[in-house]
């Protein structure tokens, strides 16, 4: 067999021993291929499992937590939300268009795997510095086009996301995509084989040799030869995906399927094993029955192919005819490849002959891998970075900051996404801190993805906490109460103690925060080995958090634009002076270091409740959290979006710690803060409510005019027209990305 030498190369000798012992014999090559796929880091979490245990995963609304293809949340009235996050980093680094597109395809099939239909997509993207790197611009342009072409074509709106640029992603871009699904509670099916006697149907795309190099991807040289029959590149076919979505939706409604499972990493090998192992029932499958693109594929190739847009269905015999008719209506190809059996084995055949037989007991969890962990020494150096001198002309600094790709409006990205399809997008990208969708039961949910690698590099624990804090403030500023999150942890080689320590700290940060406020983690993902093969340099630690919040009613919907002249601008929360990882340090001063803001989950929660309460009372007209770029940028965004100017006095800000300089007050990202526009006539009510919530606050200015005027002790610090600010903030990214250059 041709693939012999390529199979089972990543298992360690100890792992091989475990397999032999559990099985009581030497597995054959096909059996090795199955175990190899199943025990890959990607599928087995062998390096991360023990650390992820720190995360709180339970909650009254959680129906299914981590462990399946998607988490499930009960949203009442007989409906559920499903959610999952995935990355496609390595594929996107070499084929940004196809890599990003197939990433969307994959996460959408996860949502289908629990019997729900996709209703919204989010993306979180990290690239090198696009101002100087044409390579990074090329990656960004094609990744966004890949997401757009795929998401738009399958009719799932991409409604929110985030974008970060940092030198450490120059050779390893990060492409994370998150999908939200919805469905009726009684239509939920979990991806497991629980009953013998079901037919195993493979539907969708033909199986070809594409993606067969998937597992060992990172080590493939980039210029794979044209003649080579196998390819690491996967060609996206959103048309088939769309037909799968429509066909499955109809089949869910008619209860035609007992279980569905997407084919992801490891292809059939993983999908079949997981179905069997999770449900405790065996499967008996003939691989030669699979509909293939190439005629001369070997059994192993069919088994591990990662061809996209395929789903496995378990169907009871008497429903097969209706299932076939549905698949035919949508002109989807399919093959009946086997059935579930009483015997607890995964049995694989080729033209009837048994070629592999693995008891479920062997397939179980891969042994955990213990990893060394050590706090990197560079952290001390970073932390003790001295502050820069305060620039004279902060007005100019501010204009430069507004043009930073990390701060500039992301409309160039999200306008390429059809964020409206499905007629459920209540708040569109750019209009509020989070996007809001209408769910099938009529309720509203806010969603957002956030990350901040610059902060996590300097202080992984504080950085990770900060991301959760920002995410929750984004949800609250839009009128929603945080209800659940998914997290995606992305790092370099876990075999490096430094890297592993950072991973642990990031997970601990997320866990501590969520535990403190009682918000569960319903799913997530880990992606290691994001390293530059040439220099061996790892990306900055990059956890990203996808948060879901629920709104109590339509009146809670809050956007960030200023609404009326003459209202008060109120800052909620205390301003602190840590500037480590702030865009002001990194972009203006080119400083990587300093202290990263420490957030306190409990006071965050008070803040969140206060904002929601003000909105409920009807005294709050706009809200926007303080994040990248600090208070000055938040104020600018509110003014630009509302086309109303404002005045602000920095000395009024409640501060903690040492006396802050003007640059700190303007650009600090510290403290957990939300800026709100409060109805002037009803300010007394707002004030009383804020006292009740014990949230520190101050009126720092008023809305009105067409200038953004910020003073310190009466002295002008920033003075620009709304138009000037808009010109900078709104068009900088677009100008960089225009055309092809």
């Amino acid at each position, binding site marked *: 067999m041709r693939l012999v030498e390529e199979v089972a190369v990543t298992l360690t000798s100890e792992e091989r021993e475990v397999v032999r012992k559990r099985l009581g014999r030497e597995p054959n090559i096909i059996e090795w291929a199955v175990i190899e796929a199943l025990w890959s880091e990607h599928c087995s979490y062998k390096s991360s499992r023990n650390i992820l245990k720190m995360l709180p995963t339970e909650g009254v609304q959680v129906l299914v937590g981590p462990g399946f293809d998607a988490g499930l949340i009960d949203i009442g009235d007989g409906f559920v939300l499903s959610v999952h996050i995935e990355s496609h980093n390595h594929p996107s680094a070499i084929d940004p268009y196809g890599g990003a597109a197939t990433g969307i395809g994959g996460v959408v099939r996860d949502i289908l795997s629990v019997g729900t239909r996709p209703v919204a997509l989010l993306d979180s993207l990290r690239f090198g510095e696009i101002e100087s790197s044409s390579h990074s611009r090329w990656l960004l342009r094609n990744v966004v086009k890949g997401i757009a072409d795929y998401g738009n074509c399958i009719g799932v709106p991409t409604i929110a996301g985030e974008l970060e640029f940092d030198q450490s992603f120059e050779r390893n871009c990060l492409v994370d995509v998150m999908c939200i699904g919805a469905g009726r509670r009684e239509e939920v099916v979990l991806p497991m084989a629980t009953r013998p006697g079901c037919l195993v149907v493979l539907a969708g795309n033909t199986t070809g040799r594409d993606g067969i190099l998937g597992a060992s991807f990172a080590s493939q040289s980039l210029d794979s030869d044209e003649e080579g029959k196998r390819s690491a590149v996967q060609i996206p076919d959103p048309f088939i995906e*769309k037909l799968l979505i429509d066909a499955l939706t109809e089949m869910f409604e008619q209860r035609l399927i007992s279980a569905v499972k997407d084919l992801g990493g490891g292809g059939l090998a993983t999908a079949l094993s997981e179905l069997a192992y999770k449900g405790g029932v065996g499967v008996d499958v003939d691989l030669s029955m699979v509909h293939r693109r190439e005629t001369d594929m070997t059994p192993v190739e069919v088994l591990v192919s990662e061809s996209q847009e395929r789903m496995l269905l378990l169907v009871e015999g008497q429903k097969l005819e209706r299932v076939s008719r549905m698949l035919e209506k949508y002109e989807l190809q399919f093959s009946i490849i086997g059935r579930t059996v009483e015997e607890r084995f995964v049995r694989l055949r080729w033209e009837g002959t048994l070629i592999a037989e693995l008891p479920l007991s062997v397939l179980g969890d891969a042994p955990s891998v213990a990893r060394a962990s050590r706090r990197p020494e560079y952290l001390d150096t970073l932390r003790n970075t001295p502050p820069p001198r305060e620039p004279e002309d902060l007005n100019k600094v501010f204009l430069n900051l507004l043009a930073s790709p990390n701060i500039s409006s992301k409309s160039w990205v999200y306008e390429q*996404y059809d964020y409206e399809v499905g007629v459920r997008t209540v708040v569109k990208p750019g209009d509020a801190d989070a996007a809001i969708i209408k769910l099938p039961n009529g309720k509203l949910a806010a969603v957002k993805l956030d990350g901040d690698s610059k902060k996590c590099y300097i202080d992984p624990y504080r950085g990770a906490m900060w991301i959760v804090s920002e995410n929750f403030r984004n949800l609250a500023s839009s009128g929603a109460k945080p209800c659940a999150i998914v997290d995606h942890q992305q790092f370099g080689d876990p075999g490096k103690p430094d890297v592993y320590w950072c991973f642990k700290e990031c997970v601990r940060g997320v866990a501590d925060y969520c535990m403190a406020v009682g918000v569960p983690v319903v799913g997530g993902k880990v992606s290691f080995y994001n390293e530059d093969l040439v220099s061996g340099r790892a990306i900055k630690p990059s956890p990203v958090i996808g948060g879901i919040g629920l709104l109590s009613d339509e009146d809670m919907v809050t956007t960030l634009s200023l609404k009326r002249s003459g209202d008060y601008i109120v800052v909620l929360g205390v301003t602190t002076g840590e500037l480590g990882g702030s865009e002001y340090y990194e972009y203006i001063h080119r400083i990587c270091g300093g202290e990263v803001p420490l957030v306190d989950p409990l006071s965050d929660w008070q803040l969140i409740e206060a904002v929601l309460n003000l909105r409920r009372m009807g005294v709050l007209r706009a809200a926007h959290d303080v994040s990248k770029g600090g208070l000055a940028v938040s104020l600018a965004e509110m003014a630009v979006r509302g086309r109303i100017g404002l005045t602000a006095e920095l000395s009024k800000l409640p501060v903690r710690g040492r006396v802050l300089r003007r640059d700190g007050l303007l650009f600090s990202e510290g403290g957990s803060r939300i800026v709100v526009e409060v109805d002037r006539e009803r300010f007394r009510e707002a004030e009383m409510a804020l006292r009740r919530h014990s949230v520190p606050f101050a009126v720092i200015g008023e809305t009105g005019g067409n200038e953004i005027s910020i003073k310190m002790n009466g002295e002008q610090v920033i003075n620009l027209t709304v138009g000037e600010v808009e010109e900078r903030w709104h068009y900088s990214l677009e100008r960089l990305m225009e055309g092809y250059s």
Partner: protein
Amino acid sequence: MRVAIAKFPGSNCDQDVAYAISRVPGAWSEVVWHTELSPERYELVVLPGGFSYADRLRAGAIAAHTPLIEKLIDYVKDGGLVLGICNGFQILVEAGLLLGSLLPNKGLRFICKWVSLRVMNSDTPFTNAFEESEVVKMPIAHYEGRYYAGGQALRLFEERRVAFVYADERGGVSEECNPNGSDNSIAGVFNDTFNVLGMMPHPERASDPLLSPYGTEHGLRVFLSVANYVKGGA
């Protein structure tokens, strides 16, 4: 009003149109798979937005060759009403039911955003609920939306066959607020008997104030117009 919404492989906005129509008093609609649709049973056939056949070859090009289109040609001859939205417009153009062609946007990117439209003719089955020259808000979302009239643009205006043009908030027309580079900012056109309308903006996405950033429901008026017309009110 009885409405059929034709679903092709890859149609995306079929349910969205159904939702909008559910907001029209007395209207009833159903989504029908393209091979099963008999137009004569309905008072309006909608070709919804989306990516029929994934926009392969050209947006709308493959759907334009399906048997349903042949039926629609007869239906239109008999005075039946057909509305094509976005991909539906592209199909109608490809099928020759509407004049012109839809090319990739001038910026070479997919564009999703809310735009202002000026109503150019409010005296038709599809637009009688609008005021003449009124400015309305609806979203667009397309890659191949640059309307090219093949030298017939002026004729279209003269014959009042332009339904909407892209405009600014006050109804002014300029290249700046022409999002895709369409000939004379044309956003929607009628056939010569005014029973077929094709438009790139999505009225169904502008049919519920909750879903509009402006709190408006201008898109709903397209469907209200047809309902008026069918009732004999226009």
